[in-house]
């Protein structure tokens, strides 16, 4: 049984003369010249244009890196600022609680106790 490779090679060999004959017809009728032109000085100017675009990309990349770094620094600074405030708040709350507790202690003394205290003092 023929392998696929052999079949393909046979097909190529059959096609080859036909392809060459048709190619020769096209070459005779149309040739193989390039019918395209470029603006004057195009290839002289192109390297400068390309290098300019590459330099622009390099600057943009650098800018993004600085922006990313600035954002990171900003996040850290903001974060630590909030943390400090949180700590202050925690301390303030703790002091408030103590104040309230003290106030409650004083308020536990009822009117009778105050009256007897005053009368004892006399």
């Amino acid at each position, binding site marked *: 049984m023929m392998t696929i490779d052999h079949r393909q090679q046979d097909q190529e060999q059959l096609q080859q003369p036909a392809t060459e004959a*048709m190619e020769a017809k096209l070459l005779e009728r149309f040739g193989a010249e390039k019918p395209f032109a*470029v603006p004057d000085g195009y290839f002289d100017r192109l390297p400068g244009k390309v*290098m300019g675009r590459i330099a622009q990309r390099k600057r943009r990349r650098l800018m993004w890196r600085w922006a990313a770094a600035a954002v990171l620094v900003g996040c850290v600074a903001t974060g630590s600022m909030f943390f400090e405030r949180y700590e202050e708040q925690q301390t303030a709350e703790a002091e408030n609680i103590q104040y309230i507790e003290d106030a409650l202690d004083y308020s536990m003394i009822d009117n009778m106790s105050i009256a007897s205290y005053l009368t004892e003092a006399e």
Partner: protein
Amino acid sequence: MVREYQEPLYWQIRRMVLSHEDADDVLQNTFIKAWGAIDSFRQESRLQTWLFRIAINESLNHLSKKKQTLSLDQTEGSVADMLASDSYFDGDEVQQQFQTAISTLPDKQRLVFNLKYFDEMKYEDMSDMLGTSIGALKASYHHAIKKICAFFEGRD
């Protein structure tokens, strides 16, 4: 790198995209992509082959993007019109017809046709550049030639 390879790359691209303005865009994009990917360039393949591969990919991408904006009916007529009005197309009416016929080929077949017919590139080198088997390239060229001949048989 730009000065050394700009011309051969330009002509590869120009034959695919046809207009100078499009070829200019694709060529610049090719160099910018190459600059961005230079770290991944492996020494075992030649720089020219690597650059050509990028240029071909950029050309094919450009063509498929452009085709999305044109309806199928418009394609052949629009190529002929474009070439006729293009100030950077040097050829006479015969050449115009030839380029129109070539533009009817599917993009990858057109690429193979251009490389073999105009550049007389060896199939081995083409295979290395495009990553396609020699057999497939030969078949592609055969079909391309047949189709172009049929194009003119229909008109003569």
